[in-house]
């Protein structure tokens, strides 16, 4: 049992380093630190200018939470396409080991890295915009970050499983990540959206986490915030299960169509 857990963790670390391309710290710094900081800065300056409010804590928190898409989508979501590019996808599929566990194992480091990313963005936002989070329930807030990352990872897993048959998942991943910026309430209240898009927003990860963060910032109704976080985790679990189902389906399809190594 201990050996199996050890193997699970080892595989997670190795695949994270190898497939996510973080062998070079330069790539990590530009893509995961510098890029997100400027993105945060851009949206916070825009919302501050537009809403004319000095108190932009809600937008700092919302935009920071959104950054978990970097790992969820471009880490977990690209596992299959990266395996294909490395020529190892057929080995993964043919290995006598659960594909789902392989997938989950490879997601572990991304979940941790995603939490780090959100925390770093928050820290930057707090420093740059002098945000005061002293009155916030930190335990619930930390749990909210975890819920957001789990939920986004679920969607990443679902899109990633399509990578077994779809040659280019980049379009889907980029669309999904921009949709998170636009539809989850990170930059404006989702009530402003047309009704159809509001319904879509509630099917996306992060919407509830951002709402919960808003409630925590207001210092009101911790039980409602907790409820939203649990719903967020439930949504993430639903996406993970959908990802599992799709993975089984796509594995069968890719074997049938012999599309595993096709570029």
């Amino acid at each position: 049992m201990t050996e199996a857990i050890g193997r699970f963790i080892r595989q997670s670390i190795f695949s994270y380093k190898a497939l996510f391309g973080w062998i070079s710290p330069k790539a990590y710094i530009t893509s995961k630190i510098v890029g997100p900081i400027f993105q945060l800065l851009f949206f916070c300056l825009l919302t501050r200018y537009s809403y004319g409010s000095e108190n932009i804590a809600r937008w700092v928190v919302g935009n920071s939470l959104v950054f978990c898409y970097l790992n969820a989508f471009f880490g977990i979501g690209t596992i299959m396409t990266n395996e294909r590019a490395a020529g190892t996808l057929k080995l993964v599929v043919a290995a006598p080991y659960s594909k789902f566990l392989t997938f989950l194992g490879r997601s572990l480091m991304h979940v941790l890295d995603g939490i780090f990313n959100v925390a770093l963005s928050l820290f930057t936002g707090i420093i740059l915009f002098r945000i005061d989070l002293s009155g916030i329930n930190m335990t619930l807030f930390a749990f909210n970050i975890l819920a957001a990352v789990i939920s986004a990872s679920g969607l990443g897993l679902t899109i990633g499983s399509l990578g077994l048959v779809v040659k280019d998942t980049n379009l889907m991943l980029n669309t999904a990540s921009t949709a998170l910026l636009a539809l989850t309430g990170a930059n404006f209240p989702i009530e402003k959206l047309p009704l159809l898009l509001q319904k879509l927003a509630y099917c996306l990860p992060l919407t509830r986490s951002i709402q919960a963060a808003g409630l925590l910032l207001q210092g009101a109704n911790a039980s409602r915030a907790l409820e939203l976080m649990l719903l967020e985790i439930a949504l993430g679990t639903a996406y993970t299960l959908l990802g599992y189902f799709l993975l089984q389906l796509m594995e069968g399809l890719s074997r049938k169509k012999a599309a595993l190594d096709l570029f």
Partner: protein
Amino acid sequence: MKLILSSCFLQMQLSFSRSMFRYCLLVDPIFFALITYMIYKDSSVENFIAYVILGTGLSSLFNNIVFSSAGDIDRERYMGTLEMIFTAPGGFRNIILGKIIGNTLLGLLSMLVVVVFLNIFFGVNMKIASPMFFVMAMLLSVVSFIAISLIMAAIFTLSRNSRGLMNCISYPVMILCGFYFPITILPEWSRVFSYILSPTWAVKLLREAVYGIKDYSSFYMESGILLALSAAYIVLFIILAGVMEKRVRVKATLGVY
């Protein structure tokens, strides 16, 4: 000229066949237009539609040329064809110029996409008070964006870390050049960078043409600054291209991925 045109048309076909380019051209501008429109919708900022449409259009154009300048060099390197186009008798600079013009022309479609999207879904129109000056400002902007793209292509040919740079360059430019908000909200020290970046002047001229030009001498002066900066970028490109050509031959790293 024939080579530049051939390279331009081939590039347009190749770019449009890539899903990521279609995303940058069609999907990304729509989402950005939606975000900025929704943020500005109930704000007290007057004439915000110009910010939304010009901001989204110009940032998409910028992203398209950056991603393609960097991405195309990267792709040529990955496919092992960079050495071939580098040593082609037609000249590497001409081929790259053709590619950049092709991507820039396609990139202009983004603005059209945003205008159509906002009109259909939100009934929003952008009235241009000085259309002739708008066309003039747009032409100057396109020349300027091509000049920026040339510099980037030279840098990306030299460096194999182009992808990282490419991923983090858009937002600083959007902030510093005031695509979505005036640069006066930025700290004074940072405006030095804004003024040496030609898109700052491009977006300023376009916005003035949309609102209606009040001070013609100021408009002409700003146009002159934009032209001067574009010329300076082209000179910088020529210098960089010389350095690049020498260095990649000495180091033999052109095709090293």
